[in-house]
């Protein structure tokens, strides 16, 4: 995997974050807004994981690894926590959107009172 430039994941992360901010600010559909936030989370998580990447490193397990460099374990722990939290956030958001849809009959943020992204 050495031939991939090391900053490639960072570019991908930046792209994800940029696109997700575009979606969050300009899209009116609430489901799209939630997708934007999921993408933002994915971008940040990708950024964190690629921080800990070492070329040719192995998984950060204490025993049972071949000799050589190890991938940093702390960013992976951070990412994992962040993923767990995002599951909760997304579940809560979807529940609320279902409720909003029941009350207003629409998923358009313009139509429900004066909702802003």
């Amino acid at each position, binding site marked *: 995997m050495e031939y991939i430039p090391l900053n490639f994941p960072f570019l991908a992360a930046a792209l994800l974050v940029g696109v997700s901010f575009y979606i969050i600010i300009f899209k009116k559909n609430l489901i799209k807004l939630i997708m934007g936030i999921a993408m933002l989370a994915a971008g940040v998580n990708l950024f964190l994981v690629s921080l800990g990447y070492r070329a040719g490193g192995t*998984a950060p*397990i*204490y*025993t*049972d*690894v*071949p*000799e050589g460099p190890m991938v940093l374990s702390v960013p992976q722990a951070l990412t*994992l926590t962040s993923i*767990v939290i995002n*599951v909760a956030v997304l*579940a809560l958001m*979807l*529940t609320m959107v*279902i409720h909003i849809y029941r009350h207003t009959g629409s998923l358009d943020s313009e139509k429900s009172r004066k909702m802003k992204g």
Partner: protein
Amino acid sequence: MLSKIVRTVANQLILFILIFGLYVIAHGHITPGGGFQGGAIIVSGVIMLLVAFSSKELKKSLRERVLSIMESTGALIFAALAFAGIGTVFFYNFLVGTPIFGRIPVPGPGPGDIWTGGVIPLMNFAVGLKVIAGLSAVVLAIALFSSGEEVEE
């Protein structure tokens, strides 16, 4: 509710999913995985059942009260394990050196030893229990919502 073939296959497959989930939970401290990952795998099996059978059908066997008790129990076991170390410090790994998960792993390459990690494997089980109950409840609630049934969330 889907066809009989799907339901039969789902019925058989859920066992394997459960076993794989439990494997990931049990080996959380020596291989990639852990309570959340294993729990999420098992909940993916629950989602499969949800697709194969209807949400109303599944609601009969996965009762909300039971899930709620399971979730609280998982969290309380986790907290109790953390509190058990308070003789020295909160979260202190008091099982190190004891016969239960107490071996100290040898540094360097070698086969993973499952009897290591102290309280961490036990905590993984607690977290797994909580994640299974919590995520199942969430998935079930959303499914019941979208099928138009009133649930108290």
